């Protein structure tokens, strides 16, 4: 399976994603420059972390008009998988691939730390290699990760099992203080209505290589492999 990692000006998680796919997952991965209109035959797209366009105006607001976003959107409409991480999640929300928005962290500071998230639905394209309610330890590194959406959208996300991950304590229980950014309902990741776009603030691609600690993020990539090649 071929992964395409989009590089926007200001992306900084693109190499991490490429490394995770090539060296931890063992699949093919290429960079896709934001000005390109060619997805180079990729089966899965990754919108990586970083500070595309310096986060000017709003995080992700300018990147969503990059030339390649037309092809990314078309790929998503066809049901192609898109993994949108951190700044990629912000871009995906701005582009309308996912509902809601990501705002300045409640505590106003940039948070760079390991967090725990619980798998809230282990039957998605991105989570099928996890156990239901499995607790993962993943790094976050963001200043604008507070997920918000209107009440109706939140009801739908919860009702349709589209909250993929929620911030929890290390033991998997709901815990005050586990939420690093003040996200509504402790939401750390959501999937699109058709299930083929995942947006998440934690960085699974930085938790794939055992040299960096628990490789809890790798199963996200393995899950996609399972469903897409099946």
């Amino acid at each position: 399976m071929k992964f395409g990692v989009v590089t926007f000006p200001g992306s900084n998680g693109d190499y991490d994603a490429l490394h995770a796919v090539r060296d931890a997952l063992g699949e093919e991965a290429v960079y896709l420059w934001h000005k390109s209109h060619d997805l180079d035959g990729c089966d899965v797209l990754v919108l990586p972390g970083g500070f595309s366009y310096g986060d000017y105006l709003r995080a992700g607001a300018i990147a969503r008009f990059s030339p390649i976003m037309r092809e990314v959107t078309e790929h998503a409409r066809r049901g192609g998988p898109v993994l949108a991480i951190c700044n990629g999640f912000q871009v995906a929300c701005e582009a309308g691939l996912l509902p809601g928005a990501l705002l300045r962290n409640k505590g106003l500071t940039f948070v760079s730390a390991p967090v725990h998230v619980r798998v809230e639905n282990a039957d998605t394209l991105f989570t099928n290699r996890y156990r239901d309610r499995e607790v993962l330890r993943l790094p976050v590194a963001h200043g604008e990760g507070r997920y918000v959406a209107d009440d109706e959208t939140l009801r739908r996300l919860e009702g349709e099992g589209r909250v993929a991950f929620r911030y929890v304590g290390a033991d998997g229980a709901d815990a005050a203080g586990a939420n690093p950014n003040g996200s509504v309902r402790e939401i750390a990741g959501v999937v699109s209505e058709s299930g083929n776009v995942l947006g998440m603030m934690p960085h699974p691609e930085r938790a794939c290589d055992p040299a960096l600690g628990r490789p809890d993020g790798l199963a996200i990539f393995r899950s996609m492999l399972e469903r897409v090649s099946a």
Partner: protein
Amino acid sequence: MSIYRFAVHIAPRRGILDPQGKAIAEALHALGFAGIRDARMGKQILLELDAPDPAHARAAVGDMCDRLLANPVTEDYHIAPVESP
């Protein structure tokens, strides 16, 4: 064609937590300013554009707000004409 100038004010929607505004309100309170009920931190974008008439200019700026300048999920905007400098 004439030149038109606008100030676009963008603010977090009421009801959406604005931690920057909250921090500002608390700082003002700490400075001794009494009676601060609320502060919200937004942004202002000054635009200068060519258009055939004021109505077209205004409509174009509205379109800009809807498509790029404000996030419809979290922000409200207000467009005000600005007198020539």
